[in-house]
């Protein structure tokens, strides 16, 4: 039990009658690389908002590294070691690449150590030569890298990645998959993704969400074989020979 990093029990989030998250029980062990898939409106982004404290749950609890974080404020949860990367990169356009990274590095390692970590991660994400240019001038792909870099410099225990490959070319997606595995060496991950190739590529354990609850959990192959998932997720089709 001691290697459980994250556990939600009976987690509910209601928006005036609509249950975006419907008594969700979810457990994550240290070092896991969990993918979360499901159609739009399945509650994926609401779950991430609950895990990061942006939304307060209507009911249920969230435990992170044994600590009850249900009622904590976003910055307290971030300090406890949960980092997030948004689907549309949320970075500081007016600040330079290095400054963006510096901000997250300083948060967890203090002003002293921040400079060195920034240089190391800049190399990892391949943005060394763009370090001084304002992020506002970068391409969409580079901005994704900046945000991934910000996650790396913060060095959290649990990383939430919200569709990291959105808007990326295949080559960039493959590079991202390598990087996700690299992050996984040091941190546990939950990746929300629609790109099935990418999910198969990083091949962790998969959870399928539907109407705010867990529909099915298992390896990628088990999920592909699961008829219920196919009907719900891929829509009703004449029962083709699987």
């Amino acid at each position, binding site marked *: 039990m001691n290697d459980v990093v994250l556990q939600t029990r009976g987690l509910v989030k209601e928006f005036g009658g609509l249950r975006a998250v419907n008594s969700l029980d979810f457990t994550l062990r240290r070092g896991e690389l969990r993918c979360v898939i499901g159609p739009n409106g399945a509650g994926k982004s609401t779950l991430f908002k609950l895990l*990061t404290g*942006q939304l307060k749950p209507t009911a249920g609890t969230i435990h992170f590294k044994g600590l009850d974080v249900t009622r904590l*404020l*976003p*910055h*307290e949860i*971030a*300090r406890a070691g949960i*980092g*997030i990367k948004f689907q549309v990169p*949320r*970075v*500081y*356009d*007016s*600040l*330079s690449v*290095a*400054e963006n990274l*510096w*901000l*997250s590095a*300083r*948060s*967890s390692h203090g*002003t002293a150590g921040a*400079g060195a970590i920034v240089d190391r991660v800049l190399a990892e994400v391949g943005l060394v030569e763009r370090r*001084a*240019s*304002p992020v506002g001038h970068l391409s969409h792909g580079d901005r994704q890298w900046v945000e991934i870099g*910000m996650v790396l410099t*913060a060095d959290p225990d649990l990383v939430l990645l919200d569709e990291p490959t959105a808007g990326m070319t295949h080559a960039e997606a493959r590079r991202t998959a390598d990087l996700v595995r690299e992050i996984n060496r040091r941190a546990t991950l939950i990746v929300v993704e629609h790109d099935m190739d990418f999910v198969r590529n990083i091949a962790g354990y998969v959870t399928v969400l539907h109407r705010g609850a867990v529909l099915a959990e298992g390896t990628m192959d088990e999920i592909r074989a699961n008829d219920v998932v196919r009907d719900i997720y891929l829509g009703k089709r004449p029962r083709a020979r699987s």
Partner: protein
Amino acid sequence: MTAWALWAVAVVVVAALPAVLSLFQIVQLTVFMIYSLLALSLDLIWGFGGILSFGQAAFFGVGGYFYGIVGINSGSTTLALTAGVAGAAGLAALLGYFTFYGRVGAMYFAVITLTVTLILHQVMGTTADPRYAVGQARLGGYNGMTNIPSLALEAPGRAPLTLDPVQLFYVVGGLLLLVLALTRALVRSSFGRVLGAIREDELRTELLGYDPRWRKLVTFAISGGIAGLAGGLFAGWGNFMNPQVFSMFQSALVVIWVMVGGRGTLYGAVVGTLVVQSLTNYLGTASVTYTTVALGAVLVVIVLLFPRGLVPAIGGAVRRVSGRRPPAPEFAR
């Protein structure tokens, strides 16, 4: 290098001015510099903190009244000035806790700070009765508090030296440059850069582990303290404080100074104050009924033609003329 050259020039100019100006112009410039400090306090919280406060006039007034009360009763103007700064910073911290920890929206924060100022205007306006006094310092209602002691240099063991207009000019000028330098340093420090990040995207910064509430509160308290310092100096300059400092006009005037000068440039606040105040003064001496019409017209023109304020506009023009690429945001290690 250019930054240090600019500072050196500024110090030399302030030092040389009294020799060049007439006594009245010195007295006039002293109060303009005091107003610039007040504008600076708004530029810190608004230009850098991204939070528009309509309450700087309240902290200015509190600073002045505290200076008056402590000055009249204790006789020591240094103590009075510290009381002014502390009183104003205290009010700012209290107001900051009440609003930032309540997650109040930006527009509502501006209205709350304005309402607090109007309440002070109402309440201080009703203290005309002699029984409203703190020690010997009568609050004086709309007529205001009179016989406030002039600023004096006090050294332990030596009789306090009341400053004459030229000495007061140097003290105020020195304080303005000092506060300007300190705020520049604060803004460039790691605290200041996180504040800038909060201004640009508060949620993102919160998700990086920074608590925006106490950072905004600390910045607001510092800004309140600077406004309180300006209020204390003003009371020491004019030996007089009255509730008109809390009026809606005064609250808006502080915002006008910073908008005219240009937000987020620190120097903009000083330039904006000097431009608007010398214009108001000139109009006042020009003729009787044209003052408000002319000031109104000028404000409308500035908003339409120089939306980002004079200093950025001038800066932009200089850059366009000199062809230099806009400076990349420096990143001090």
